[in-house]
C-alpha cells in the first residue's frame, strides 16, 4: 500500500481512468443491445412474435435477456474495476 500521498493520488487517478474506460465500454455494449431491442420493437414488431428458442417468442427472450445482461455486466464491472481512492 503506498504511503506517499502523491503516489496515492496518482494511483487513484489511474484507477479512475481505467474504471471510466471499462465503464464506458460496457455502457456502449449495453446501449447497442438496448437500442437493437427498442428499434426492433418499434419498426419490426412482428419479428418480436417469432419463436427462436424454447417455444418462447423473441419479445420475452430479449426482454428477459436485457435484464439478465444488465446484471451480468454490473458484476463484470465490479470484478474488473479498480479501487479508486478512499473517498473525500
Amino acid at each position, binding site marked *: 500500500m503506498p504511503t506517499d500521498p502523491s503516489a496515492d493520488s496518482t494511483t487513484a487517478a489511474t484507477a479512475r481512468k481505467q*474504471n471510466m474506460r471499462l465503464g464506458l465500454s460496457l*455502457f456502449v455494449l449495453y*446501449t447497442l443491445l438496448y437500442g437493437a431491442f427498442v428499434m426492433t420493437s418499434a419498426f419490426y414488431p412482428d419479428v418480436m412474435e417469432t419463436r427462436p428458442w424454447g417455444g*418462447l*417468442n423473441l*419479445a420475452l427472450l430479449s*426482454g428477459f435477456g436485457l435484464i439478465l445482461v444488465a446484471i451480468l455486466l454490473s458484476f463484470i464491472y465490479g470484478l474488473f474495476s479498480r479501487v479508486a481512492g478512499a*473517498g473525500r
Partner: protein
Amino acid sequence: MIYEVSPLAVAIFLLFVGGTIGLSFFLGRKTQTSEGYFAAHGQVPWAVNGIAFAGDYLSAASFLGICGMIAFYGYDGFLYSIGYLAGWIVALFVIAEPMKRLGRFTFADALDSQFDSRGIKLAAGISTLAVSVFYLIPQMVGAGALIQPLLGLPHWAGVVLVGATVIVIVVTAGMVSTTWVQFLKGSMLVIFSFILSAMVLSRGLEVTPPGSGPGELQTIGPLPASEFAQLQAFAGRPAMRETEPWVDSGFVRLENPAGGFDVFSVRQQDDQVWLDQAQAVTTAADGSQQIDGLPKGDGEGQRLLRPVGHLASLPDGQTETGPLGPLQFFRTLQNSEVVLWGNRRLVHADQTVTTVYYQKPTEGSRILRPGEHPTFAGIRSGQTKDRIEFLSLMLALFCGTASLPHILIRYYTVKDEAAARKSTIVGITSIGVFYVLTLYLGLGAMTSGALDVTNSNMAAPLLARSLSPLLFAIISAIAFTTVLGTVSGLILASSGAVAHDLISGFLGIPLSGQQQVRVAKIAAVIVGGIAILLGIAFVEMNVSYLVGWAFSIAASANLPALTMLLFWKRTTRQGIIASVIVGMVSSLGWILLSADTFTQVYGLRADQAWAPLSQPGIVTIPLAYLTLIVVSLATSNNRATAKAA
C-alpha cells in the same frame, strides 16, 4: 365482492407504520448536523445502501403501476421494467463514481462542483423540485388506491395518511431514517414478490367457463346472426327498450329481476353471435355511482363490480394445468386465450357518463408481444409518428434513472467511490430480479379472477388476495411501505434543494448546519403538503404512466448537464445553466401541451393539443445537449475552462 376490509392487513400495516416512525424517532437523535440529515454521515454500509437503492427506486409505479399494466394489457407493462432497469446501466457505468466524488448533499452540488455558481444552484435546485414533485404525484395516487381495500377509507385518506407518515419520517431523522425505511421496504418487496410469483407458478392456469369463477360472468349464445336484430329476449330474459346513448352502442341490456340491468357486449363470429356479460359504471355529476343500474354498495338494492380476470381456453383443450415451471408458464399462456377488458364511454343527455367495461377474448400470443396498450399500440399502426412516440418513451426511461435527484443523493451516503460502485451493483441485482418477477405477478393477476376493472393499480394486492388472505395483508402493507420509502426519498431531495441549494446557495443566506437542517425540515413539511394535494387531484391516472413524465423531465433537465460536465472539457457555467433550464422548461411545457394531458387532465380533445407527441424526450434531451454545446462555445472566452472530471 372485490374489496373487503381485512383486520389482519390493518394490523400489519399499523405495525409497519408504527415501526418506521419509532425507528425514525430513535435515529433522530443522531442527525442534528447537516451531514447527518442529508447524507447519513456517509456511513451507510454499501450492501445496505444497495438494497436501499432498490427501496428508493422501486416505487408505487413499479410495484402497482407495472403489475397493473401487465395485468390489463400484457407484455407492454414489461417494457417499462426493461427501460427502468436499463437506466441503471447509465447510473453504474457513467454516473456513480463521479457523483460520489463531486457532490456532498444534493444534485446541484455535483453540477456546481467546478464553478461555485449561484445560477447553477438555482437551476439545479428548481429542477430537483420539479422532477421530485412530478414523481411524487403517482406515489401519492398509489397510496390512495391502496387505502380503500386495506382500511375501507376513501382515496384522500390514504394520501393524507402516507403524506403525514412520510413527513414524520423525514423530519425526525432525514437520510438516516429514510435509508433504513428504504432498506426494509426493498428487502421485503423483493422477497415477497418472489414468494407471490412462486405461488402463481404453483397454482398454474385454469379455464373459467361462463357463469363460473368469482365474477360468475354469463355468456349467451350462439345465436343466428341473421335473426339477432329482431330478437326481443335472450335466454328467456327481455331486452330493455334502448334510448340514447345505448342505441347502436354495441351493447345489449337485459332486465335483471333483482333490479337494474345486466349489460352484454355483442361478439359476432361468421354467422353466429354471442353476448358476453359486461359491467356498466354510471357516474352522475354529483359523483354518485351506479353499477349496472343500481346504486354502488353492498347493501340491499345496491350492487358492486364483479371481480374479473380469466382464461377462456388452454392449449390442447385442457381445463387446468397444475403447477408450471417458469418458462412453461409463458409457453402455456402463449397458446391460450385470455379474456382482457376494454372500456367504452357513453355520455347521456344530462352529462351523466356511463363507462361500459367489456370482455375482449385475446390470443395469448398477442398478450406476450409489444403493442396492446394504447401507449404502445402505435408501433403496429405503421405510422412513423407513433413509432417515434415509442422511441421517445424508451429513451426517457433509459436516460431518466441516472437523472433522478432522489436516487443520485444516495451516492453521498456511502464512504467512497468503491462503495458507491458496489452499492449500485447490489441495487441493479435486486431491482433486476424484481423486474423479472413483475411479469409473473402481472400475468398471474391477469388470470386470477380477482381484478377490479376500474383500477389497474390494485392488480398486485388483489392477486395476493386470490392466493391467501395473509399474503394479501402482507402485500398491501408492503405496498404502503413502498410508497413510504420512495416518498421519503423524494421529500428529502426536495428539502435539500430548498435549504441547501436555493436558500443557502442561491440566496446566499448564511446558515449553520443546524439552521440548514431546520429549514430543510420546514421545506419537507411544505413539499409533503403539496404532494398530498396533488395526490388527491390526480386520483384516476395510472401511476406508471405518470412516472414516465417525471423521467422525461429528469432526463431532459439533468442528464445532459451532468454527462457533459464529466466528459466535455469545454463545458461552461452558462452552458450548464442554459441546458438545465431549456431541458426542464421544454419537457415540462411539452407535457402540459401534449394530447395525453389534454385528454386526461384538462378533459379536452386530443386533436386540440399543441405538442405533436405525448413523450417529449426524443426532442428535449438532444435539445438540452445542443443548448449546452452552443452556449458553452459562445461563452468559452469569458471563463476558465472547466476541467473534465
